[in-house]
C-alpha cells in the first residue's frame, strides 16, 4: 500500500498519547500554594539540616523578586504558582528491600512504561533510581557501585549522608538566582538524583533515572547533581514519561554537572512527557535549567531527545572553564500538534584551546513551533577556541514553524567559529529516489527522518537508543522505521 505524506499527517494528528494512564497511589500531598512556611515544611519533611533550609529560603527570597522570563518563542498560559502543591510523595513507606514488597500498582505502571525493574536489572545492567512523583522509591545496583566508591542515590539521601559534597557543589553551576525557574526549584525541590564518581574511577555501567509525573496538580521539581572527580568517567541517562492530564503540569528541574580535571560526563535525556491532546489542551510545561562546568581537560556531552511536553524551555549548557575542555550538545526535538519547543544550548568558552560542538535537529509537524536558541560565547582570554554548530530543521506540513536564534559573541581573534543552519522538507526527489529503488513511501519517510536524526541518535548509549527510537515512534509514528 502506498503511504503518502497526507496519510502520515493524518495519522500523526490522531495519534493518541500511548502512555497516558494514571496510577492511583495514595499520596502525601501538601496544601496548594507557596510561602516561606511551605519551603520550611518541605525542608522539615525531608529532615534536612539547617544550612539546607536556609539555602532554600534564600532561593525563595530571590524568586519572590524575580519575574517570569518572556523572551522565549513560546506562548502559553502562565502557571499560577499559588495553585500548585509543592510536595507529594508516594505514601507507602518505608523503602523496599526487594521488588516483591513494592506496591503492585506501581510495578504495573513501570511495566506499562516498559521499565520492568527486574528485567532491566538482568538484561540491561542498568542501575535505576526511579523517581515516582518526587521521592526515590527504589535504587538498584547500589552495592556494585559502592564497591567502586561511586555514590548514586537520591539527593535527599545525599543531603543526609554526604552533606559535605552537597554543600560544596550545590548551586555552584546554577546559582539560586540564576533564573526564575532555577530559583523556584532551589526553594522547593523535592527530590532528584545525586551522583559522585571518585578520582580516576570509570563508572562500569550507565546510570539511569526515570522520572514520572503522577499525582494531579503537583508540580515536579527535580534537582540533579552529578560530580565527576578528577580523571573519572560517567554516563548518565534520564528518561521520562507522564500520564495524560488536562490540567497543565509544571516541571522546573535543575541539573548541575561538575566535571573536574580530566573527567568526562555524558548526560543523555529522553523526554516524553504528555504533550497535550491534538487540540493543544493540557500537556506538561517543561522549564528546565541544565548546566555543566568543565575544568581542565574535562568533557561534558549533552544528548537529548525531546518528543514530549506542551511547552519546552530548555538549554543544556557548558561552561568551558578549564583549558583544553570540551563541550558537546546533540539534540533532536520533535514537535507535533500544538507543541512548542524553544531549546538549544549555551557554550561559554573561558579556557584556552576549548572546543565545542553543537548538532541540533528539529522536526516539526502539525501546528507546532520548534525553535533553536543557542549562544556561543568566546571570551577574550579563550585562545584558540573552536566551535562548530549545525542546526537543521525538517518541516512536515505547512502549518508548523521552525525558527533559529543563534547568538554568537566573540572577543578573541584566534577563535574559529562555524555555524550553519538549514530548513527543508522531505524532498519529493528523495522519496522518488527511494521509490525508484523499490522502497515504499512509508519506509522512505522513515529512512529519511532516521537519517536526518542519525547524528544525534548515534550519540545515545546503546541501552537508551532503543528507548529513544520507541519515543520517536510515538511522536512521529509511521515515519521512523
Amino acid at each position, binding site marked *: 500500500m502506498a503511504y503518502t505524506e497526507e496519510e502520515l499527517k493524518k495519522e500523526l494528528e490522531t495519534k493518541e498519547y500511548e502512555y497516558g494512564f494514571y496510577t492511583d497511589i495514595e499520596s502525601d500531598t501538601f496544601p496548594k500554594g507557596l510561602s516561606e512556611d511551605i519551603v520550611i515544611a518541605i525542608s522539615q519533611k525531608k529532615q534536612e539540616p539547617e544550612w539546607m533550609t536556609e539555602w532554600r529560603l534564600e532561593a525563595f527570597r530571590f524568586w519572590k523578586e524575580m519575574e517570569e522570563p518572556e523572551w522565549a518563542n513560546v506562548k502559553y498560559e502562565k502557571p499560577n504558582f499559588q495553585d500548585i502543591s509543592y510536595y507529594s510523595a508516594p505514601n507507602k513507606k518505608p523503602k523496599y528491600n526487594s521488588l516483591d514488597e513494592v506496591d503492585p500498582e506501581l510495578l504495573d505502571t513501570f511495566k506499562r512504561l516498559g521499565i520492568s525493574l527486574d528485567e532491566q536489572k538482568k538484561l540491561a545492567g542498568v542501575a535505576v533510581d526511579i523517581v515516582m512523583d518526587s521521592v526515590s522509591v527504589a535504587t538498584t545496583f547500589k552495592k556494585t557501585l559502592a564497591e567502586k566508591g561511586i555514590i548514586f542515590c537520591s539527593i535527599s539521601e545525599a543531603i543526609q549522608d554526604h552533606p559535605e559534597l552537597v554543600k560544596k557543589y550545590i548551586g555552584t553551576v546554577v546559582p539560586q538566582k540564576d533564573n526564575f525557574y532555577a530559583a523556584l526549584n532551589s526553594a522547593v525541590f523535592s527530590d532528584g538524583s545525586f551522583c559522585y564518581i571518585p578520582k580516576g574511577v570509570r563508572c562500569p555501567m550507565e546510570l539511569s533515572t526515570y522520572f514520572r509525573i503522577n499525582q494531579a496538580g503537583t508540580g515536579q521539581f527535580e534537582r540533579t547533581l552529578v560530580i565527576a572527580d578528577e580523571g573519572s568517567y560517567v554516563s548518565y541517562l534520564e528518561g521520562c514519561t507522564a500520564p495524560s492530564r488536562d490540567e497543565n503540569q509544571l516541571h522546573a528541574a535543575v541539573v548541575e554537572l561538575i566535571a573536574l580535571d580530566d573527567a568526562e560526563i555524558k548526560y543523555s535525556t529522553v523526554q516524553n512527557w504528555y504533550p497535550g491532546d491534538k487540540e493543544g489542551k493540557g500537556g506538561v510545561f517543561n522549564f528546565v535549567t541544565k548546566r555543566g562546568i568543565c575544568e581542565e581537560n574535562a568533557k561534558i556531552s549533552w544528548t537529548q531527545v525531546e518528543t514530549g511536553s506542551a511547552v519546552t524551555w530548555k538549554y543544556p549548557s557548558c561552561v568551558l572553564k578549564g583549558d583544553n575542555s570540551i563541550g558537546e550538545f546533540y539534540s533532536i526535538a520533535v514537535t507535533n500538534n500544538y507543541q512548542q519547543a524553544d531549546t538549544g544550548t549555551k557554550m561559554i568558552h573561558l579556557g584556552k584551546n576549548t572546543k565545542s560542538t553543537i548538532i541540533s535537529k528539529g522536526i516539526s509537524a502539525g501546528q507546532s513551533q520548534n525553535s533553536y536558541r543557542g549562544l556561543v560565547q568566546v571570551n577574550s582570554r579563550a585562545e584558540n577556541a573552536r566551535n562548530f554548530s549545525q542546526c537543521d530543521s525538517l*518541516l*512536515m506540513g*505547512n*502549518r*508548523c514553524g521552525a525558527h533559529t*536564534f543563534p547568538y554568537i559573541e*566573540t572577543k578573541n581573534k584566534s*577563535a574559529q*567559529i562555524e555555524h*550553519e543552519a538549514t530548513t527543508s522538507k522531505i524532498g519529493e526527489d528523495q522519496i522518488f529516489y527511494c521509490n525508484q529503488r523499490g522502497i515504499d513511501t512509508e519506509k522512505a519517510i522513515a529512512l529519511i527522518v532516521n537519517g536526518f536524526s542519525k547524528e544525534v541518535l548515534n550519540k545515545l548509549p546503546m541501552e537508551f537508543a532503543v528507548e529513544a527510537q520507541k519515543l520517536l515512534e510515538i511522536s512521529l509514528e509511521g515515519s521512523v522505521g
Partner: protein
Amino acid sequence: MDLKDKLLSSFIAFENNVDLDNPIHEVRSEAIKNFEEKGFPSKKEEAWKYTSLNNLQKVDFSVFPKQENTLEYRDIKKYFLHEIDTYKIVFIDGVYSSYLSETTHDGVDVCLMSAAFNKPMYKQIIELYFNKVASKDESLTTLNTAFSREGAYIYIPKNKAPRKPIQIIHFATGNEAALMLQPRNLIIAEENAEVQIIERHQSLTGNEVFTNSVTEIYAAKDAIVDFYKVQNDAKTASLVDNTYISQKDNSVVRVHTFSFGGKMTRNNLNFYQNGERIDSTLKGVTILGEKQHVDHHTLVHHAQPNCESHQDYKGIFGEKSTGVFNGKIIVDQIAQKTNAFQQNNNILLSDKATINTKPQLEIFADDVKCSHGCTIGQLDEDALFYLQSRGIPKKEATALLMYAFANNVLESVRIPELKKRINKIIANTLGVRVGFDL
C-alpha cells in the same frame, strides 16, 4: 535636557515652519506621538542588544542648523564619484544645495522631498507611497517621519531608466556645534523601470554628527533597483540608517553596504516581498578599526511564493572595534518554494575586537530551501606563507587575502568606477599600497 525632550520641544517649532494643511501634517503628528511614547531604543530591547545609543543621547545636538553653510566643489570633490557623469542631489547640513546638485525632470524625476511634499503635481504619489512601507512603530523611524522635510525624491516612470546613476550626498559642516540630521528619501521605480543610486553621508567637522536617515524604496513589477551605501564617514559621525523596501512581482532590488568609517553605524535594512518571483540581494563589506562600531540589522520578509533572497555580509574587525550582524529571514506560510540564503563571515584581527552575530530564521512554510551560515576565523596561515614565500611582504599579503575575502561582495557591484573606488578605500583602510589596482 536630554535629546528626547529636546527633540519633542523642537517638534513644535518645526511644525510652525511647515504647512499645517498638508496631509503630511497628520502623519508627522502620529509619528511624534509614537516617539514620545517609546523614546530612544535601549539595550534592553532584543533588537538593540548589542548597540547602545546612550552616549549619543548625552550630546547636545543642534536639531536645526542656524545658518546656511556653503562648500566649494574643489574641497569636496573627492567625496563624489567624479570619474563618471551622474545626477547629484547634495545636501549641506540637511539643506539642499542647488549649486552642487544636478537634478532632472526629463522623463524621470530626480529632485527633492520638499518639492514633492509641497507641489500639487506630486500629491497623489506622496499619498500613495510616503510612509507606507516605513515602520509606524519603530521609534527612530517615527522620529524621522515626524521631522521629515527634506531628502531625495526619485521617481522613475514605467519602462524608463535615467541616463546615468544618481548620487545622493549629505554633507555635515557642523561648524556651529554637534549636529543631528534626519534626511528622508523616497525612491519609486515603476513597472519595468531601472535605477542605480549611490548614497553617502559625509561629515566635514570634528564636531559630533548624528544622522537618523530613513529611505523608502518601492520596486514595482519587473523593476530593477541598485542601491549602494558608502559609509566611510569621519570618526566623529554616527549614523542610523533605516531602509525599507517593498517589492512587487519579478522585481530585483540589490542593496550593497560598504562600512569603513564612522563612529557608530547602525543599518536597519528591511525587505518586504509583496509579489512572486522576486529577487532580493543584500550584501555588505565591513572593515573596522579603532573603537568603531557597526551593526547590520537585516530583515527579509518572504510573504509570497517563489521568491529568492541572497544575503552575504563580510566583516574584518581590528583594534577595539565591534561588529554586529543580526539577520532575520521570515518565511510566511503561503510563501512556498522560497529560496533564502544568508551568509556572514568574519575575521577578527585583534583580541580587543568583538563580533556578535545572530543569524535568525523564522519559517512557517514547509516547501522551502533556507540556509544560513556564519563563520568567525582568521586568515589562512598557509595562504599567508605561500604569498610571503613568493616575495610579497606580510602586510601586503594580509591585505591581499582580506581583499579576496571581501571580493565576493564586490563582484556584484554594477558600476565599475564605484567598484574601483571601493577597492581604493579598502586599500586605504588596510593601509597598503600594492603595485596593482586593489
